[in-house]
């Protein structure tokens, strides 16, 4: 009874097509924004920022990007890590080679480079689907890994192959403290999430979903599969590229190609699948699950006072983590976003039986 649309009459299509047509949803989002922008900065400590919140925000951005491609357009990609690497190395090169370049501009340019690379590696999607496409994007992962570790130009010929950058500085303000980094990432994430939401509820989003659900019918309506698929690769890669740039510049500050290896691709794909394909909310839930849960499992024995060796903890962590993933997928194959939706439908009536 607390979550229902009864009594909220819409008198225009604009109101009906709003991002959150139901008042309770708007309140809910406002609460989350408040928590994100005010409560968390006031309440948490440096460790939490570094270990949980900043990685969560950046990986959520990458998951959001991947979800546009996999969840909305139905094109499976295992190249996320590589596209993040493209973003990070492109941002680094723009930033070192153009003196005085605003880092935000460098991030956006990096997103642009990732877009172009994403489109290039998206071209196979015009002919192949499903698992075969996943294998083709895997090629992007291996190829780009190789490029960044072997071709010195990309790392500006640093002898070790690893890159170090100073804190991001915008308009004279250095984002050096964890809180400022957190707020920077949060702001970027919120802006990108709004853009993603807008795209998926408009014409482009519908053409992606149409291609995903029934490509022959989509083509007969006049949606050209080439435009739909490549635009999905482009937008998705842009998001992922910016996330990669943030991961390098804001979170790691010094990194080597290993930071963007195949494991990164898998973990982001897991976020999307566990969170919920085809849902903006799902990207956040999945990212939270994958980034927070291992740390939580890691800390749990200490909190409840059991003496376990560190090696043991990390083994158990892997086992429980894997079991939980299987559990979630078995209980709700459509992801946590779907559970959330079912919960909302139940809440419409609760506490009454009907």
């Amino acid at each position, binding site marked *: 009874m607390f979550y229902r649309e009864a009594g909220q009459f819409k008198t225009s299509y604009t109101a009906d097509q709003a991002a959150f047509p139901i008042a309770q949803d708007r309140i809910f989002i406002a609460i989350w924004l408040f928590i994100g922008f005010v409560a968390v900065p006031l309440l948490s400590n440096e460790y939490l920022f570094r270990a949980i919140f900043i990685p969560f925000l950046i990986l959520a951005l990458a998951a959001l990007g991947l979800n546009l491609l996999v969840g909305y357009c139905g094109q499976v990609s295992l190249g996320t890590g590589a596209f993040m690497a493209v973003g990070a190395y492109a941002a680094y090169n723009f930033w070192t080679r153009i003196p005085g370049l605003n880092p935000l501009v460098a991030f956006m340019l990096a997103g642009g480079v990732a877009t172009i690379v994403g489109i290039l590696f998206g071209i196979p999607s015009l002919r192949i689907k499903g698992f075969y496409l996943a294998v083709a994007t895997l090629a992007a992962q291996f190829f780009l890994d190789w490029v960044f570790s072997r071709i010195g130009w990309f790392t500006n010929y640093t002898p070790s192959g690893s890159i170090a950058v100073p804190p991001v500085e915008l308009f004279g303000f250095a984002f050096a403290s964890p809180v400022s980094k957190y707020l920077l990432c949060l702001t970027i994430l919120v802006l990108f999430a709004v853009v993603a939401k807008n795209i998926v509820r408009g014409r*482009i989003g519908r053409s992606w979903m149409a291609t995903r659900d029934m490509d022959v019918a989509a*083509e007969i309506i006049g949606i050209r599969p080439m435009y739909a698929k490549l635009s999905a690769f482009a937008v998705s890669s842009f998001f992922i590229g910016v996330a990669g740039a943030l991961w390098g510049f804001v979170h790691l500050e010094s990194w080597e190609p290993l930071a963007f290896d195949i494991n990164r691709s898998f973990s982001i794909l897991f976020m999307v699948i566990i969170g919920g394909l085809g849902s903006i909310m799902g990207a956040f839930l999945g990212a939270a699950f994958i980034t927070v849960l291992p740390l939580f499992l890691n800390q749990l024995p200490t909190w409840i006072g059991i003496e376990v060796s560190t090696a043991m903890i990390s083994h158990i962590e892997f086992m429980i983590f894997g079991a939980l993933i299987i559990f979630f997928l078995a209980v709700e194959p459509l992801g946590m976003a779907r559970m959330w939706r079912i919960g909302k439908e139940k809440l419409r009536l609760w506490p009454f039986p009907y």
Partner: protein
Amino acid sequence: MAQTRALGEPILSMDEISLSFGGVKALTDISLHVREHEILAIIGPNGAGKSSLLNVINGVYHPNRGSVTYKGETRAQMRPHVAASQGIARTFQNIALFKGMSVLDNIMTGRTLKMHAGFFWQCLYYGKALNEEIEHRHKVEEIIDFLQIESIRKTLVGRLPYGLQKRVELGRALAAEPDLLLLDEPMAGMNIEEKEDMSRFVLDVNDEFGTTIVLIEHDMGVVMDLSDRVIVLDYGRKIGDGTPDEVRNNKEVIDAYLGVSS
């Protein structure tokens, strides 16, 4: 049925169309005309090439020989998006709706070709993009109203019963405001009541919007009542072409498909 509508010039002509898949000949030397504003039914036994014929018309299949003339332009083959932009819409034998989208979104997708707001505005969902969404929403609501599916507009189509899905698919095709509407077995698997509803929609579309309709149907009662003209296919050949009465009494058609009527 009373002939009140004046049939116009041919909007679509097929000339000596042949289509084969490897050694299988799906269509052999098919020539036909579809005149403006008529309802043309294509009938024939299973595997006669009816769906292949529709697929040639809107460019999913490319014929090996022959040409298609549509709105005065002769082509060796159509391309699906060209067909769509020239005003050919269709529904499918096995429902081909976008299952993960709501009824409203499905029908809105039917208007994709009429929407042009740029990427920038789409990202903001404001200005041009918003105006466009609203403007097309009005059109889509008219179609929803016409098909009497107001109550389910926000429902995911995957959850709808079969009969309603068929109706939504018709809605999606109508959203493109087509000049030529191809319906592949619009009434297959429906009960009498649903068939009556669908027949009424087909007639109304033809009447109100003046849309030319080509439909494939197995229910002879429906075919004979609805259509102005009937074409009969058998083994990829055209064996009959004429008004329902002519076709009904055609010896070859009776042997191949209709059987001896009592």
